[in-house]
């Protein structure tokens, strides 16, 4: 049996919980809403071929993901950001799909940390 692979940096999560205290739930909630909004707009921009917009949204998403200790998610966002920057969105739909999948793991793990 293998250890379940975590999608979050546990040290970061521990620090966040320490600092946010009771507001940790609010943080997770905010992150979920921010992220859903970003994923939705990334879909539109990728579909519309708006490379600069892809770059900006992916950039912001990357920062937030990093702050929450979701390093794999941040890394995926960064590669999307790079595509936007190079104005080559050929592989973007696939990469966005990876981002969405990774996000579902991340948010599930975060919500599992919340009480009841």
């Amino acid at each position: 049996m293998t250890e379940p692979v975590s999608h979050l940096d546990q040290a970061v999560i521990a620090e966040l919980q320490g600092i946010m205290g009771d507001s940790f739930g609010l943080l997770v909630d905010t992150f979920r809403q921010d992220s859903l909004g970003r994923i939705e707009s990334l879909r539109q921009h990728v579909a519309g071929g708006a490379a600069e917009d892809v770059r900006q949204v992916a950039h912001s998403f990357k920062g937030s993901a990093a702050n929450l200790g979701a390093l794999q998610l941040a890394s995926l966002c960064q590669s999307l950001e790079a595509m936007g920057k190079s104005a080559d969105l050929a592989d973007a739909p696939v990469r966005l799909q990876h981002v969405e999948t990774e996000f579902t793991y991340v948010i599930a793990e975060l919500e599992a940390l919340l009480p009841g």
Partner: protein
Amino acid sequence: MQDDSLTILIADDSNTDRLLLEAFVRKLGHRTITAVDGVEAIECFHRQQPDIVLLDALMPRMNGFEVAAQIRREVGDTFIPIIFLTALTEADSLAQCLEAGGDDFLTKPYNSVILKAKINAFRRMLKMHGTLQEQRDEIARYNEHLLREQDLAKRIFDKVARPGYFKANNLRFSMSPMAMFNGDILLVALQPSGNLLALLGDFTGHGLAAAVGAMPLAQTFYGMAEKGFALKDMVRELNAKLYEVLPTGVFCCACLVELDFEHHTLQAWNGGLPDLFLVHGREQRIERIPSKSLPLGVSSSDAFDPAPGMYEMEPDDRVFLRSDGIHETVNAAGDMFGEDRLEAILHRDIPMAAMFDAVMQAVNAFAEGTERTDDVSLVELVMVPKQAFQTGSDVVPLVRELQGPVDWALDYELRMDSIRSFNPLPLMLHILLEVPGLRGHAGDIYTILSELYANAVEHGVAGLDSSMKETHEGFVGYYLQKEQRLRELADAWVRFHIEYRGDDNGGCLRIVVEDSGKGFKEVPDMTMPESGGQFSGRGLPLLKTLCRSLTVLSPGNRVEAVYDWQYKQSRA
């Protein structure tokens, strides 16, 4: 810790990151304000005046770079640390943050240890900057205050020093425009006798200290000069006045000179200034007049010596007065101008009239290339024949509208102790000059009083024969004898009887001087002698030309002078 807490503005459009950072900052004990874009950030900045600004670089409506630039423009040199929040990693983007006016940046993911270290560092800088700024403002306020006081002092200084005879045709001077600040002062007055008096002073300290000393100095100088006090009495009084007024440690190095155009003599007193140079043209000789006394205002004791020296001058001979500015003038190499250079110029074979300019030019050329070029006080006074001397100014006292007494008489008797030690002329003149309109005639009045009084004391009381004065030996002997007889006499007196009657046009002054002497065997002839030799030399005949009438009353110990004057014919 509460005292150290700061107000920190966080501007980030990412709700997650903003929420997170807010929690981080609060955990460190600071107050937070949040904004969701650049425009709101500016509004919050105006409203709450935060101590530190944390700015996301990429924001809707107005990005972080623009916000930073606008804040910098608005706050001027007030220190507001701006820290960029960024997930950027490329070096050029980070450089862009700093160029836009950022002081530092914080990369995502946030790290509470780094955040704490950065905020603490900026808090220390803010404190230091605040202290510096307070000190700078305090210095600026102090400086402004000082400038105001100096300006005030300068105005006082100029006002008290100004009413002098600075346009006299035998006077040239250069006073630094900074005179007030180096404490140099020049005063020039005319004695009732027509003698020209000049005082060059150099106060220790400057600004207000100099102005404070300048007031009593100038007022005493002009007041006493106008009343005809002797130079020695003026020096003594100036010293007493300054000693009384000035704090210990502030004093006035000064010299006073009196030019007598009639007898071509110079009286000079020097207390603490560099040697005066008296240039004798015909003999091509330079006589130095060194400081022989303590400066004015140092001591009231006998250590202060008010006695001036007496020097002979011929027409066109000149005396140079200076403060230490000339020989202390420093050239670009740091050498001082010194005494030798100055004396060498005066020894050069140039016309006497060119000496003043030559000195000034040499000093200015010497100081070329240094900052201090005109910090020099130099005064030149030339002996001229009496008729050639012109005051050059309209200092002739104004006709007074004020009414004084118009019909009065006074009797004044001096006994022996007073005759020996007291000069009554300033007092008498002081009373007479209170008569409206008579100030313009001060010279005449002074001459009449002084000749009549000298006549009464020397010939009447002391019984001396003025024919003694015809030879040089006799001249000296005459004064020695006078002193001796005055010492010996016990019961002598001189009486003044003065009557005055005036109206709107002018007035008539009758002065009778009577002495306790025996008088003369015969009433003297009063025509002007061709070459001296008559009983009174030139004294009484000279008076006859000034007065409506001059009468020697039998047996010769009473002389009556009647002097008329009119308003419109004021003598210059």
